[in-house]
């Protein structure tokens, strides 16, 4: 398992893309997807919602459990990945690519986001 170098990470196991035109793409890491098991249902925030760093904004349900989804940054939702809503297994099969979850117009980001190497050390993976 390798965590892409160009992304940053939260301790709640989300990844955050580089901010382009003020907008960042967010998903969960491969480590988190593996820990969840097969994801079968994704409730994502809706376009226009305001999300706050470290607070819940949706849920991911797997065969055995349901987990809250957090936003690693504060801002306004500009897109939710309808492909994941239709086929939640994308979170498992392509967590860093087609399995992205939502996009946020970033208003504020916390200072403690991790680099790929820091996250690898933090998660042990």
């Amino acid at each position, binding site marked *: 398992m390798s965590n892409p170098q160009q992304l940053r990470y939260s301790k709640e196991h989300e990844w955050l893309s580089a901010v382009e035109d003020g907008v960042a793409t967010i998903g969960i890491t491969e480590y988190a997807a*593996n820990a969840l*098991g*097969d994801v*079968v*249902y994704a409730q994502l925030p809706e376009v226009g919602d305001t999300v706050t760093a470290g607070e819940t904004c949706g849920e991911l*349900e797997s*065969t*055995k459990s*349901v987990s809250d989804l957090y936003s690693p940054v504060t801002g306004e939702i500009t897109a939710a990945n309808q492909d994941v809503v239709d086929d939640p297994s994308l979170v*498992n099969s392509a967590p860093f690519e087609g399995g992205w979850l939502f996009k946020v117009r970033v208003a504020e980001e916390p200072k403690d986001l991790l680099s790929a190497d820091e996250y690898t050390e933090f998660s042990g993976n």
Partner: protein
Amino acid sequence: MSTAPRLTALDALHRSLGATMTDFAGWDMPLRYASERDEHNAVRTKAGLFDLSHMGEITVTGPAAVDLLNFALVGNIGTVSVGRARYTMICAEDGGILDDLIVYRLAETEYMVVANAGNAQIVLDALTARAEGFDAEVRDDHDAYALLAVQGPESPAILASVTDADLDGLKYYAGLPGTVAGVPALIARTGYTGEDGFELFVAPGHAEQLWRALTEAGASRGLIPCGLSCRDTLRLEAGMPLYGHELTTGLTPFDAGLGRVVKFEKEGDFVGRKALEAAAERAESAPPRKLVGLVAEGRRVPRAGFPVVAGGQVVGEVTSGAPSPTLGKPIAMAYVDAAHATPGTEGVAVDIRGSHEPYEVVALPFYKRRK
């Protein structure tokens, strides 16, 4: 009491296969190896290999072994012939279910009782206490056995390729001693998946050799290793109760809709008889909540303990729920008031974290294999 998890004889092998391990009743067991959905589908369409060494084996021997079992359990063990097995229960004096069991009759005066991992000590203690005055010995044989299961439509062909035992002559719920892949085994045609399959009781020292031989024999037939996660969705689709969910000490077999396992007609007294007779009468006059199946219209998954609601009232409780790989929808088993228990009843929902999600009431099981 030690808190260190107990390990099966196959522990190192599971880890080498990359299994995600989980604590189950004090045992460190494989939850899944890769995708639990793939494992589930392999058992439904081809074959899966399970390590079930956490199950508890108790041997009961002696001239009065059958009398002891008839006294200690609710079933009629006297009608089980050598080489056959019986699904039964052990109840407390008040009729509450202590565990559900499979009893194999291995020889004229020798039986093996297989208990759930979480209840193995309770069953052992109860049988030991109830053996007083009977010319019979109750022996904890947990450490004498590893238990592997091969389940799925390809399992007879896979097993046949590594044994000379007469599998065609081995009926469902029967067991015979034989040699599998060069290893002495009790070969039982039992399982907990809703598919045809076998459970193989072997010495722990032989478990790894047997696992490797079955893996090799099954590779071309689609056999893959399977964990407890898919075992749970398989048994749920098959409508099979799980102790701690559908069965508890707070329920009698009649409350669980399994009154048929209680045999009042057998000779002599048995533990719980009086309370169970009352429970049977109660079930006749005032039907208890009924165990039903629920199929989701949406995609949110009901979990054990979630309320079942109708018309704004709580009318039941979910005991097990999961996304069903075979149906492609979330399913659940639930105890529901008789008024809402008829298949097709309108307006039933499950309260999933505050949102009332519509569910269809169906008869169990959700899935039945074609024979």
